[in-house]
């Protein structure tokens, strides 16, 4: 089962909850082997809490075009096709802007002149694999300066096992890299906080999961006596609240020292195990 953790707003506790959920399930026979995949490839941070041993690291490359000016006749078909404007062609001028290229390969298909476009490969980041005790760990790490996180998330998704439990720590926001993470997951657990920003961005994230047809539920982090507005929104949208974690300054202080939620509240383990059981049930119910 693949469970993606998203939020909309950043800083609501996706990584805190991902790590705690993974740690709570790693010795739970019902969950099978547990793998945490940090899909926030622009700024992965789960490793700070899990301190994994990395045993494998491989580069991820993207296919990009390059002009061979001995063959190119500057017809411009490739540049007209490219919706990302990664190519510029005018008589006597043919340029590629690799950082704009999404690697769709369309330019190679539309180019009418054999040999005018060569295929080059460009490294955009790495995928690392390892483990933290009995918990499996993997993450993508985008090369500094790269802007395209989505292809790296896509490559990371392809390496995930079919069995056991996979927990995806999604990037914040609701843009392409979030979509790439959540798409095809069995469930999306949305971690939110009862603040206006938290609620606003949560609603966007809910809408994305609806479009992707991924069942969803909410975990309210930093829950207190101001959950009312959030509860109203969730009731209106028909989204279930699966768990609440009370606001506790000690958790934030622990995080700044690289300690986890479970270090502070080991009593949460059975609650996370029970959350897992509820999610499994919702996944079963959602299957046609």
């Amino acid at each position, binding site marked *: 089962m693949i469970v993606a953790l998203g939020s909309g707003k950043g800083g609501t506790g996706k990584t805190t909850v991902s790590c705690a959920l993974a740690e709570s399930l790693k010795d739970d026979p019902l969950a099978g082997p547990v793998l945490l995949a940090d899909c926030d490839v622009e700024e992965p941070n789960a490793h700070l809490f899990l301190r994994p041993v990395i045993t494998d690291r491989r580069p991820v490359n993207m296919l990009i075009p390059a002009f061979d000016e001995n063959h190119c006749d500057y017809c411009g078909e490739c540049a007209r096709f490219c919706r990302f404007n990664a190519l510029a062609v005018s008589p006597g001028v043919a*340029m590629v802007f690799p950082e*704009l290229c999404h690697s769709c390969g369309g330019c190679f298909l539309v180019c009418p002149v054999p040999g005018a476009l060569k295929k080059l490969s460009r490294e955009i980041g790495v995928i690392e694999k390892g483990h933290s005790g009995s918990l499996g760990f993997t993450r993508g790490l985008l090369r500094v300066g790269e802007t395209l996180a989505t292809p790296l998330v896509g490559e990371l998704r392809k390496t995930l096992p079919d069995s056991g439990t996979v927990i995806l720590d999604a990037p914040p926001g609701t843009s392409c890299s979030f979509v790439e993470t959540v798409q095809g997951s069995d469930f999306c657990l949305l971690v939110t906080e009862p603040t206006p920003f938290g609620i606003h961005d949560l609603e966007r994230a809910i809408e994305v999961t609806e479009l992707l047809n991924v069942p969803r539920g909410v975990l309210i982090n930093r829950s207190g006596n101001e959950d009312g507005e959030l509860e109203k929104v969730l009731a209106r949208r028909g989204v279930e609240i699966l768990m609440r974690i009370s606001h506790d300054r000690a958790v934030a202080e622990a995080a700044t020292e690289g300690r986890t939620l479970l270090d502070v509240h080991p009593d949460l383990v059975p609650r996370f195990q029970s959350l897992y059981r509820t999610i499994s049930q919702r996944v079963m119910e959602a299957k046609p």
Partner: protein
Amino acid sequence: MKVAVTALEPSLDSDIDPRFGRARWIAIFDLDDDSVEFLDNAAGVDAASGAGVQTGTMVLNAGVEVLVTGHVGPKAGQVVAGGKIRIVEDSTGTVGEAVERVRKGDF
């Protein structure tokens, strides 16, 4: 000689558009016959990425020798530099005034 000026509106009285890649209109003047044409750059304004590359290519294809605008970004700059166009940045005022300055060689 042809001159390109970025414009907010398709009019000589329009202010210069300070942006190049996402300029709304590109005025193309032919100083030899005093003709003017306004190229619609809606595609550049709405481009998800590479607006400067797209607009730069458009200006290259128009065969201009001078480009008057506010600021040309790095990618657009590379494209336009490929065509040996003289770039006049930080320009303000109206499109008509810009053309007059170029005509007098005052830029």
